[in-house]
């Protein structure tokens, strides 16, 4: 340890206990026991730097952005713009104005459906999705299809939750106008081969939207390398605040798209005869945005990158393997979603115990997991279950927490005498 390089090596090593100290909520007790938080796929907990950034912004930096000629407003505008640049860096977008701030992934997808979709699709055209989409990547397209007389096509998945890529390719027809796929499934954990999907779609001239809600906080994403046309995610799953989301759009597409909402900030000039719209990204950001949320998201991006995807990826993959093995040994438990290419999600059902009861019982041991259909009812139907219990992993989880879950599942078995 006397080597000069040693301290930096130690510093760059992933230390889960050090990470945990950054998340104040993890010291909370639940029903007189330590909180074991295994519901990060629903929302992640927030590290101190994000909490500090939010508090500091409101305590010392709050002003409305744009057009203010006073220092406070200029500072807020600069902080908001910096947050956009941080997201640009996270996704490796070509330009900051390809990053549009929205409320969440859902709003980002609705924006694309109602702006790009309504402009581009007509009667008989098709939108292609997969069977493992979240409702937020199904319903906006159904609404669009009803509005323009288009058809929603669904690519099937295997029994282990893997997308049938051959079928997917076959379903890209001359009428397909848009492909929308999830990067990492929230209910199965499947990682889709988005690079292949983009290549196949582009070979037929079809643009691709990727729902990155579950992926951006687990793995590096490079929209230029992926060559995707739209990429959406939500801030609160990336250790950031709720109410702030992101739409990345390829500049040439965003330029040709009409505004999604009208109002202040998105205009160049307004008269009662004619309104002209602002440049990107402001054309798509009508009204006062969630300034604090964007700045808080910027802090979350900084935090995520300072920990580093290499360490996060290794730690989470290790936990997933450990959890998969541990849960597989629980009698009567069946994992739903066992694709060879998956991350962070352990969805399961147990003989004789409904997921809802599992959730209540493990909560009495201080363990937070999600139970239900996870906004993916077609996935539940596909696997013939009404619901699943889902433990999901983030950078701050530990092997001991997986052990605690397994122990709590024994209480489930005792209660139901499984």
């Amino acid at each position, binding site marked *: 340890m006397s080597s000069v390089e040693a301290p930096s090596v130690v510093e760059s090593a992933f230390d889960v206990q050090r990470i945990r100290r950054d998340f104040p909520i993890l010291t909370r007790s639940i*029903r007189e026991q330590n909180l074991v938080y295994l519901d990060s796929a629903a929302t992640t907990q927030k590290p101190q730097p994000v909490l500090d950034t939010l508090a500091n912004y409101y305590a010392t930096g709050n002003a409305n952005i744009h057009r203010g000629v006073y220092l406070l407003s200029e500072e807020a505008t600069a902080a908001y713009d910096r947050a956009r640049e941080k997201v640009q860096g996270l996704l490796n977008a070509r330009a900051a104005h390809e990053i549009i701030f929205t409320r969440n992934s859902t709003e980002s997808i609705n924006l694309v459906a109602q702006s790009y979709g309504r402009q581009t699709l007509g009667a008989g055209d098709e939108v292609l999705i997969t069977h493992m989409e979240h409702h937020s990547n199904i319903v906006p397209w159904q609404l669009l299809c009803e509005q323009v007389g288009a058809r929603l096509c669904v690519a099937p998945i295997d029994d282990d939750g893997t997308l049938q890529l051959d079928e997917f390719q076959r379903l890209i027809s001359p009428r397909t106008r848009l492909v929308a796929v999830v990067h990492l499934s929230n209910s199965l954990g499947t990682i889709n081969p988005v690079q292949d999907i983009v290549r196949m779609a582009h070979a037929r001239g079809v643009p691709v939207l990727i729902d990155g809600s579950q992926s951006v906080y687990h793995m590096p994403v490079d929209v230029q390398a992926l060559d995707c046309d739209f990429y959406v995610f939500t801030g609160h799953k990336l250790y950031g605040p709720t109410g702030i989301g992101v739409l990345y759009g390829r500049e040439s597409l965003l330029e040709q798209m009409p505004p999604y909402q009208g109002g202040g900030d998105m205009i160049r000039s307004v008269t009662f005869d004619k309104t002209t719209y602002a440049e990107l990204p402001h054309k798509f950001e009508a009204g006062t945005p969630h300034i604090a949320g964007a700045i808080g998201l910027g802090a979350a991006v900084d935090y995520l990158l300072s920990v580093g995807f290499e360490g996060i990826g290794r730690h989470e993959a290790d936990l997933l393997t450990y959890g998969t093995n541990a849960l597989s040994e629980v009698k009567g438990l069946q994992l739903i979603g066992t694709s060879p290419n998956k991350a962070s999600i352990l969805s399961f059902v147990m003989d*004789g*115990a*409904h*997921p*809802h*009861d599992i959730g*209540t*019982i493990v909560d*009495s041991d201080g363990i937070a997991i999600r*139970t*239900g*259909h996870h906004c993916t*009812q077609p996935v*539940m139907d596909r696997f013939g279950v*009404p*619901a699943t219990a889902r433990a999901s992993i983030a950078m701050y989880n530990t092997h001991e927490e997986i052990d605690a879950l397994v122990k709590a599942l024994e*209480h489930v078995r005792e*209660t*139901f*005498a499984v």
Partner: protein
Amino acid sequence: MSDLRDLYQEVILDHNKHPHNFGELADADRHADGFNPLCGDKLVVYVNLDGDTITEVRFEGSGCAISKASASLMTDSVKGKTLVEVRELFDRFLNLVTDEDAADDGHALGKLAVFAGVRDYPARVKCASLAWHTLRAAVEDRHGVVTTE
């Protein structure tokens, strides 16, 4: 685990495992579908009526232990009762599972009193009340799916 035993009483676990009046009632006078979109619980309640008296009632579907046991115990307790009596029972039951200050209404509710523990688990109230909402829709001959949302 003591709180949990209040919720998952033996009677509830028994009815979950061996529900009474479970299965379709062929040629039922009335039936309604119930759905809890929160957790995916689905059930159908079938009713035969003689005037305003419930002569037969059955249910089928899938759900958690609370919703299944609630449906099972409900069918036991409403058979032979008039619709007015059933409505009163439903009101008392809802009171039992939602109102923290509710006096223990064990006598009037009979076996249904085992659901008193539900009031400490607000997220589970819908599980306990789904069958009752569905029964009400069935006897009122309302069409469409009843949801707890």
